[in-house]
């Protein structure tokens, strides 16, 4: 699988280039529409539905799926799991790109993006959960940039700057975990203010904790999923260490994800119990809730466990997709499906194709940047001049 010939690689990439070219072209056009005609010209947002998929997918899913950075770096640097060291750089890179794209997407969504620094420099709305989210995401994006920078510095040959940043590794990792704990949970806390709009099965005083725990699941699963993809397309860039450690990363992260999913399942059931919301489970929303809880939490937990036990890498990789989809489903349920559940269907929101177009455009920018970076910088291999140093 990993042994793709140069010719094959070229044909894959030329197809990718073609698709990327089209998506980016359409994206630029949609960007023009957005900033010349306002949100009304490209979205189905309304006064009842002020947040659409740019919040559900680009912000809520984007931040959760970019959690691999803090999860992996804390496992390796703080918990001392050195055998996963080769997974750190790809995870930090995808985390950094993920957050950068979240920031890009936010610029499309807010009305006056040039005022985004206002909450920091003009007037601080400290009673707002969104203030905390903004502050943490901005700070964490900076932290991720610094954490990522050694790879770029090795590529550019900036030895001194690099050694300075590498000395900060532990500090930055701790910073990353603190900031991630706060904003991952706060993204859930955003919805605490609207108990009258979010269905009781999804509304819970524990929602910040649910969001934080699912970010760990997303982070672990994304590392497995991304490694599957990069083995398919960039195996030729990987060094001996990376290739040797990869199976261990899949097994270890799969095991951890299985446990965290089991814990998450438990706290979800406890949440239903403490609020005594059992009776909702027989309604339509209840069945949908069970689909999420059983199909995308309990099932991946069991499949991960089974995959680890039987050392079935294929099953673990499949399960990682299931778990990632589960987190995406959860974010969509909280912010769209179960939000405004009290409104008649005529007042509900469904995304305009151009909203989806912008989201695809932003993901595509991420893929292009990822490819640009991993084919140039020491992400999937150690730079020969800096052996055992990062």
């Amino acid at each position, binding site marked *: 699988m990993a042994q793709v010939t140069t010719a094959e690689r070229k044909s894959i990439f030329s197809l990718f280039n073609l698709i990327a070219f089209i998506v980016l072209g359409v994206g630029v056009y949609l960007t023009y529409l957005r*900033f*010349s*005609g*306002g*949100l*009304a*010209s490209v*979205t189905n*947002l*309304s*006064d*009842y539905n*002020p*947040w659409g998929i740019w919040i559900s997918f680009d912000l809520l899913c984007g931040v959760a799926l970019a959690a691999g950075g803090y999860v992996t770096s*804390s496992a390796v*640097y*703080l*918990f*001392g799991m050195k055998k996963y060291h080769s997974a750190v750089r790809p995870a930090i890179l995808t985390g950094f790109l993920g957050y950068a794209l979240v920031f890009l997407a936010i610029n499309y*969504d*807010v*009305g*006056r*993006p040039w*005022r*985004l620094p*206002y*909450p920091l420099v*003009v*007037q*601080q*709305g*400290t*009673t*707002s*959960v*969104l*203030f*905390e989210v*903004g502050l943490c995401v901005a700070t964490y994006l900076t932290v991720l940039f610094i954490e990522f920078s050694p790879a770029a510095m090795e590529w550019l040959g900036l030895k001194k700057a690099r050694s300075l940043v590498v000395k900060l590794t*532990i500090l930055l*990792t*701790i910073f990353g*975990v*603190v900031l991630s*704990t*706060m904003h991952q*949970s*706060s993204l859930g*806390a*955003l*919805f*605490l*203010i*609207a*108990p*009258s*709009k979010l269905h009781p099965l999804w509304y819970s*005083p524990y929602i*910040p904790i649910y969001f934080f725990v699912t970010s760990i699941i997303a982070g672990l699963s994304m590392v497995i999923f991304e490694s599957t993809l990069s083995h398919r397309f960039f195996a030729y860039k990987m060094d001996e260490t990376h290739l040797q450690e990869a199976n261990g990363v899949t097994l270890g992260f799969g095991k951890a994800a299985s446990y965290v999913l089991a814990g998450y399942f438990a706290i979800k059931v406890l949440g239903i119990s403490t609020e005594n919301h059992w009776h909702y489970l027989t309604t339509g929303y209840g069945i949908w809730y069970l689909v999420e809880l059983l199909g995308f939490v309990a099932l991946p937990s069991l499949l991960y466990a089974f995959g680890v036990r039987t050392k079935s890498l294929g099953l673990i990789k499949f399960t990682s997709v299931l778990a990632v989809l589960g987190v995406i489903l959860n974010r969509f349920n909280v912010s769209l499906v179960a939000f405004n559940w009290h409104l008649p269907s005529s007042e509900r929101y469904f995304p305009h194709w151009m909203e989806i177009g912008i989201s695809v455009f932003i993901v595509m920018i991420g893929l292009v940047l990822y490819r640009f970076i991993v084919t140039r910088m020491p992400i999937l291999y150690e730079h020969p001049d800096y052996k055992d140093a990062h």
Partner: protein
Amino acid sequence: MSISRRKFLGWVGAAGLSTTIGKSAAAATNKHFTGYPKSFAILHDTTLCVGCRSCEAACNKVNELPQPDKPFTDLSVLETKRRTTTKAFTVVNKYDNSKGPQSPVFYKKQCNHCLEPACASACFVRAFTKTKTGAVTYDSTVCVGCRYCMIACPFEIPTYEYDQALTPRIRKCTMCYPRVIEGLLPGCVEACPMEALSFGKREDMIKIARERFRKYPDRYVDHIYGEHEMGGTNWLYVSGTPFKELGMREDLGITPAPQLTAGALSSVPMIVGLWPVLLAGIYAVSKRKEKIAQTEQEQALTSALDKKRPAESETEEES
């Protein structure tokens, strides 16, 4: 370093003071904010409202909003349920009367001007202000356009100029703040020909409502909507039919919106304070384990070598 008693007391004082200054998010307090004293309120008596839309016309005029497609004298618009929009800060809707099917009920909808507004609490740039008059005002010069206020508002009032490319604003009723501070009545109140709207001090409006309940017990449901809903509002309603039948939510509870997020926000400083300690501790433990493992390995190696050496020397002797 020696610490004088005086210095110590100074520090304690400073620590104590620092907890009292600065703005509290009203987290986990048992204080109940009942609104600014002497703030104004508007009492809407739906039993007196005839659905003439004079208030809508007046609102349109004083706020200099664009003319609607159908004139305000056209009452056919009452046949469909409407909500507040960027072009109409208030709308009157018609509802069936469960008590008397021949006489429909009318209910005027606009911003309720909460005592502790969800929008103001949710805004990360403090674009909303709860003024002492009771009005919740909005400052478009700082607004970023994130629309979290619209998510937060339990009454679904704020509207957004989605069609504006570069200068979208939130639009909503201002309780005619500019007029009230000049001593004028809010536009809608002034225009109402039926006295279905009364303006005055909030305490007085509550008293008037209760007085009406006492005088005409058969005419009213014994509840002032807005007295306690979401912590209380500066717009109050009395009705002859259950409020639910007027499309008003009766399940909002009496918790002011800021309290809903205060708990989560109050955990932030604890994470900032404790997480680094915990994480550094875990780092130290794993570091130490590594070190012990290394020394043990070295010891095992040296002892293995020690054992081997005499054995080697013995063989040498034998030869």
